[in-house]
């Protein structure tokens, strides 16, 4: 039986990535946050913050080669919820980040194009440029009468060619990421995630689908040209990073470790995450097109209805 088709969509562009990185004020995490330090003993995962702000959170399986939009959108969900829950930022969490918005902006606007009729796919630097300078949209938010309720691969296909519709660009601009910083090894990833900054990784690394007894998926030579989010790090006898797949809720199986001792992995993440060994993470990030995101310009807090609820 043929394996189900699992779209990827990372199209490396090393020249453009280097150009983008060299344009950054602080190109690498070491320069952007020299004070950032990871506790070598502590495991840190960002998924509980997402569940805290959205208990029924779930992600979809990407339908086309739009992984770059999905990887960065997952990072923005993790970043924005962490800023609310952990850093106590007074913001409202309206809904999941709309993958198509980042995908479109990374293919067209962020590259200075008006159209892009090339095949599907994008690269990390373009998405980093998109989320920092062009922003993103969200599901369930009213954009002057337009509300995105459901995921659509067709929308990604269309917007991937046309770019984000002009009338939506001003809305996206309100929700930008302050900083995207190149992450090139596991140590830097740990420093970023310990501070609540997820890492969007772009690499050619493939994995088996079944997790081993420690919750890791072993790297293989499948050669996935893929972008996903890293949303956790674990230390101890087998250090690694938590890889968040964009192939739907049943893309991985086997034993798991949630990253929180004594706590089960939440069902929304159980079937689409696995741990990657630190040496493999080093290889993946060495491709120099993976970024830690920080400082999301979120939604202002909603006003509460009356405290007494009509009872007094």
């Amino acid at each position: 039986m043929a394996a189900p088709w699992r779209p990827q969509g990372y199209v490396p562009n090393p020249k453009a990535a280097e150009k983008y990185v060299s344009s950054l004020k602080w190109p690498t995490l070491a320069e952007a946050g020299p004070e950032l330090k990871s506790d070598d003993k502590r495991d840190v995962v960002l998924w509980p913050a997402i569940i805290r702000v959205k208990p029924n959170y779930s992600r979809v399986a990407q339908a086309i080669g739009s992984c770059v939009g999905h990887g960065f959108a997952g990072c923005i969900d993790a970043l924005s919820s962490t800023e609310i829950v952990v850093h106590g930022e007074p913001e409202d969490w309206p809904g999941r980040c709309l993958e198509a918005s980042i995908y479109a902006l990374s293919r067209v606007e962020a590259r200075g194009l008006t159209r892009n009729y090339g095949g599907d796919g994008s690269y990390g630097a373009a998405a980093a440029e998109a989320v920092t300078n062009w922003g993103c949209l969200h599901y369930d938010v009213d954009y002057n009468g337009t509300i995105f309720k459901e995921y659509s691969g067709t929308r990604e296909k269309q917007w991937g060619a046309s770019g984000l519709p002009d009338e939506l660009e001003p809305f996206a601009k309100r929700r930008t990421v302050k900083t995207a910083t190149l992450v090139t090894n596991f140590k830097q990833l740990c420093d970023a995630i310990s501070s609540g900054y997820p890492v969007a990784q772009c690499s050619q690394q493939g994995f088996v689908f079944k997790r081993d007894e420690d919750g890791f998926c072993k790297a293989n030579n499948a050669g996935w040209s893929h972008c996903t989010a890293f949303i956790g790090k674990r230390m101890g006898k087998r250090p690694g990073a938590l890889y968040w797949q964009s192939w739907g809720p049943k893309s991985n199986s086997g034993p798991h470790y949630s990253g929180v001792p004594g706590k089960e992995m939440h069902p929304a993440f159980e079937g689409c995450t696995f741990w990657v060994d630190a040496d493999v993470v080093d290889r993946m990030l060495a491709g120099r097109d993976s970024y830690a995101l920080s400082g999301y310009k979120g939604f202002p807090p909603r006003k509460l209805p009356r405290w007494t609820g009509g009872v007094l």
Partner: protein
Amino acid sequence: MNLRTVAAVVLLAVGLFGVPPLPAIPTSTSVQEPSDEMKTAVKPVLKVVSRMSPIDRLWLQNIYENFAKVVASDGIVDEPVVTSTDSLRATHIAVLKFIWKGMANNSPSKYEGLAEAIDEVMSGVISDESRPLTPEMRKSAVELCRAIAWAGLGKDQ
């Protein structure tokens, strides 16, 4: 069963078992005196309390003493339930429904300005925005509820 039979049954029951007890009303508990800052904050409530019956003032004390306990103890043994101003508000309304409406059998708007006064002080001291509940906000909420309970004593009148 006609009215005469019902009256006879009731009289017989009273003769045999005595007068049934009246519904339990709360008795004043040991209300802590709040800080000067909290006394100032609850002034809008004090104004309305002066027009409330003694029994309803006791109910007010009862509500806010208990609510303060709920908020203060949340998260000590298990994961916290009240983690945002939204969940704090929902718990507040649940306590109001349970005691003010359910036990005291009071209707909404029984005392003009009471809801507005409570809303004003809660919004002022805690927040009028949907946001995560920080430890500082939780502490303020507990102090405020104790101060509202103290306002129920009407000592400042």
